[in-house]
């Protein structure tokens, strides 16, 4: 059974559909990347899966159970965490408070979870008393991912985690994502840095105008000449 399946999704923001039958599936222990041109509906797909916009047709299954148009709160309870592309930290809260908010729905002691996040992002431990809004773009991205990891998710959804980062930080971020996968967490992400993302991805989808164009393992997609010419800039 797949961890997550979103099959034949149609939907948009009230007007015309942006998604026209897009399909994405994620297994445990794998990194799945959605790439494609601007306006293809990549971020929209993430939002549809997470219940942030209305799915008009199609179904979302989590461990085989239907969760189509579920509330974000319900997704979090199921163990799905989502990191939006921008404005993804609480700027006036400290790093530590941001992490605590991630675990808002968790009953009981959250200190072990915090420790686990600090192990993945040691820098956050140093900076835990600092206001998140005052940090650099790369650090904020760590806070955002750390916040998402606080629920001990089985599926982590990342919307362009490397947007606006320097090349060095991009490499670092991808390394961390691999580490997260190795903890046994499924990762579904949208990426603009398509080549690098596919290089670390177990599988990838190429989305265009709201539907799937290609779907294959990361390396195969990278090697696919049509994909390279049309979507990866030659």
């Amino acid at each position, binding site marked *: 059974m797949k961890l997550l399946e979103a099959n034949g999704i149609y939907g948009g923001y009230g007007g015309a559909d942006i998604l026209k039958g897009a399909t994405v599936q994620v297994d445990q222990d794998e990194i799945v990347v959605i790439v494609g041109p601007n306006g293809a509906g990549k971020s929209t797909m993430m939002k549809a899966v997470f219940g942030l916009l209305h799915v008009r047709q199609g179904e979302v299954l989590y461990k085989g159970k239907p969760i189509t148009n579920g509330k*974000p709160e319900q997704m979090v309870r199921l163990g799905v965490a989502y990191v939006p592309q921008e*404005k*993804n930290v609480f*700027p*006036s*809260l400290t790093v530590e*408070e941001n992490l605590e*908010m991630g675990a*808002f729905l968790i009953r009981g002691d959250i200190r072990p979870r915090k420790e686990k996040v600090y192990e993945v992002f040691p820098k956050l431990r140093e900076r835990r008393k600092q206001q998140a809004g005052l940090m650099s773009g790369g650090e904020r991205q760590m806070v955002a991912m750390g916040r998402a990891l606080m629920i001990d998710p089985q599926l982590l959804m990342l919307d362009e985690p490397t947007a606006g980062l320097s090349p060095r930080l991009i490499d670092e971020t991808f390394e961390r994502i691999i580490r997260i996968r190795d903890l046994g967490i499924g990762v579904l992400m949208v990426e603009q840095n398509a080549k690098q993302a596919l290089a670390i991805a177990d599988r990838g989808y190429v989305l265009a105008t709201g539907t799937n164009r290609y779907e294959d393992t990361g390396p195969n997609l990278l090697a696919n000449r049509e994909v390279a010419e049309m979507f990866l800039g030659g």
Partner: protein
Amino acid sequence: MDLLIDLIQLSVYGVVLGSVLALGAIGVSMIFGILRFAHFAHGDLMTIGAYVGLSFIMITDAPIWWALPAGMLGAALTALVVDQAVYKHIRRTQPVILLISSFGMALVLRSIVQIVWGPSVQSYPTGIQRPWWVWEIAIVPTHIWIILATIVIVTALHLFLTRTRIGKAMRAMSDNMDLALVTGIPAERVVMITWLIGGALAAGAGVLLGIDSRLTPTMGWNILLPVFAAAILGGIGRPYGAIAGGLVIGLAMEISTLFLEPSYKPAVAFVIMVAVLIVRPQGIFKGAL
């Protein structure tokens, strides 16, 4: 020399008034931060708190300061009921509809006060206040108590916002509502608690104002404009700024009586507010919930 003494004397009154304004403005700011609308019924929540507190000590014969917790409880519940009965149903539309609704709610609450407690002026049994003379400045004991009560309430609020899970969630929602939803923070619950706290703070302001002067059904409405001025001066949506805003407005209002009719005090607050809006629409003091 006389002018200096007048100035200091008025500054004392200004800090007292500023305390009241600050408590009101924090609530306005918090509600704005989370629900994104200016709550026009806030002054009338103050009135409700003042009257509930008065009734409580009259009925139970309790000492006067018991009016504070009783009034706070009363107004907190009123705010919650108003939210659940009315605001909740229009929250999904534009915030401006909430603003209209709250304007109407101000009149509804005031009519209820008039029906329950009557239109006449009432007062807290503060007894005869013998001022302490410091140099040539008269300091009335209740003024000290009002300032102390404000410090206690604000400190409690600060601890709540920085130490408790739900308080932090309120700050998070005020920061970024969309992210709060994605994070799984239960918005409805946080909104309800915001109303409870906003109502309680309003009542704190109302009771203290009632102790300082007298109770009338329009007491809260009459002070709403200075409260808004304080919230805007502090940068609306930022409760800590609202404290500073309250003090500045309170001082300005009292000191203005040196050269203006006292009845123009609210206009002084208004003029400062307009000046702030022109110069810095985002408010003067930095900081966030």
